[in-house]
């Protein structure tokens, strides 16, 4: 399977105090296209640092990070925004929508960054909101949307750049169980139906059944990598897993 992101021997030390704080201590990890990978671990274990480095937001102290085949550790501050824009979409725990822009405009902003003309951006934003089930919310401001709706707008925005990689930080943490599962279904669909590499940092055990692979991080190291036995790329398997999740949800209600 092709690696959308490949991390080798990754270390990250924050310059705090005389010795510094070592957040990552030699991490090797691959995220594949069509795969939903979950990063789990206690607070301070280094999972958000790892996600930040994979997303080209932080730079590593040492090691190698390849994003869509491009070695990014040697790139400077000027080049990294371009890598993020071209290859990575972010979904945040706090949604990070622009409160003064409507849902549609939030999506259009991403398209504007990519140089899409205003009329084309508007059309595309409407299509993306339709994909996440928010057709009627184009003109709504984030303050008028529910948590789940906000997160789906954020997903639509992440998709607007047509990235191969989606990095999500605690995307369900601020959502109730039902809404969280809806959001996970959307992210799962991106991995399994649209072939994106989806990497999610989460504490939320309610959504683990959406993962194709779970990587546990402790003290800056990979403590355990749990490869689920069923190949997620097979639609039948995915559908089966989806049906099981729906059944569990039905029983819980």
């Amino acid at each position, binding site marked *: 399977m092709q690696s959308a992101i490949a991390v080798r021997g990754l270390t990250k030390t924050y310059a705090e105090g005389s010795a510094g704080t070592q957040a990552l201590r030699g991490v090797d990890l691959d995220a594949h296209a069509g795969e939903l990978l979950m990063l789990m671990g206690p607070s301070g274990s280094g999972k958000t640092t790892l996600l930040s480095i994979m997303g080209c937001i932080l730079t590593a102290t040492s090691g190698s990070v390849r994003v869509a085949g491009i070695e990014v550790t040697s790139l400077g501050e000027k080049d990294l925004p371009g890598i993020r824009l071209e290859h990575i979409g972010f979904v*945040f725990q706090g949604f990070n929508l622009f409160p003064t*822009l409507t849902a549609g405009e939030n999506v259009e902003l991403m398209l504007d960054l990519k140089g899409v003309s205003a009329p084309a951006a508007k059309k595309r934003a409407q299509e993306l909101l339709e994909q996440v089930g928010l057709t009627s919310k184009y003109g709504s401001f984030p303050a008028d949307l529910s948590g789940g709706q906000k997160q789906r707008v954020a997903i639509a925005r992440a998709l607007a750049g047509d990235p191969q990689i989606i990095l999500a930080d605690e995307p369900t943490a601020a959502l109730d169980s039902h809404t969280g599962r809806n959001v996970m279904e959307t992210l799962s669909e991106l991995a399994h139906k649209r072939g994106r590499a989806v990497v999610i940092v989460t504490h939320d055990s309610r959504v683990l059944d959406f993962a194709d692979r779970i990587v546990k991080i402790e003290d800056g190291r990979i403590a355990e990598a749990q490869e689920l036995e069923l190949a997620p790329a097979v639609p039948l398997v995915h559908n089966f897993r989806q049906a099981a999740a729906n059944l569990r949800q039905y029983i819980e209600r």
Partner: protein
Amino acid sequence: MPPLARRNLFHDKVRLVVTLTGIVFSVVLIVVQLGLFFGFTAATSNLIDHSGADLWITAKNVPYVEQGVAFSERKLNQARALAGVADAQKMITHWTQWKRHDGGEESVQIVGINVDDNLERPWNLVEGRVEDLKAPDAIILDELYKAKLGVTRVGEIFEIGGHRARVVGFTRGIRSFTTSPYVFTSFKNAQNYTGLREDQTLFILVRAAPGSDLESVRRGLLAHLRDVEVFTTPEFSHMTTFYWMFTTGAGVAVLIAAVLGLVVGFVVVAQTIYATTMDHLREYGTLKAMGAPASYVYKVIMKQAAISAVIGYVLGMIVSAFVVHASQAGGAAILMPPPMAVGMFFVTLIMCVGAALVSINKVMRIDPALVFRG
């Protein structure tokens, strides 16, 4: 580009009002101080600039028009005899005392002219005629100083330097920088009012013949007249303005106040734009995480500053126009020439954009991990 800058700016109405108040305050302060500077500058050299003369003959070492030193009026005929001189006239401007009807005294600045000539005639007359000054003891003064001098109407009689004076007309807007009102009168009256000897004058005003070279005429005057200096009107105007505005420090004080206006405006605008930026810091972090280049973020912040500048400028100029208009009735005129009004737009824009740079510096140093905090 989605209207992020405009929406962010208008989102917090209270902060917008504070920002605009700061800009308007700054614009008005700068306009008033610079306008006063221009008003004072115009007032210091009013007499010289409106003289209609090309050259001014003075005694040696006269630093400005109010400091004229008497010299023999025989030099007038010598000047008239020179080639290139079309006209030459005596002129007096000197301080003396005006006695009000209530017994109080005020300092006035007598301007004695040859009424039959066109040099240094009072301008902007609103009542009476210049020719009325031919009558004995006749004077013309500016309506701005009616109250100060206790004058109510044409025909009133006063006492200047112990001599009779009768008001025959009024001008409008001829201000004196020294606050001693100009009193126009005939040369003969002026000699009486100021106690100048009959055979003396303080200045000779020269008009050069059409087509003559002013510098040649000046050299000719200096060669033939002893113990005098000859200045072109712009030179003497500049000398007088420089003395009052810079040697006395009056103009410097006004300019410092104008600079303070700029500094205060800059600080207020910088503070409010900085606070607005801090409010939206997470959004700028998100923009950067999304892959926005630094220039895109600059553009958003700069656009906010530019919108603030345009609105603040328009409001500031409206307020300034009222202030400028109101000042016309007072002793100190605030002038706003069109180039200054246009220049103020760029000053406002630079002030706001400069203030925004403080915020940009902060945004560029955002902790990237900010976007991952819940």
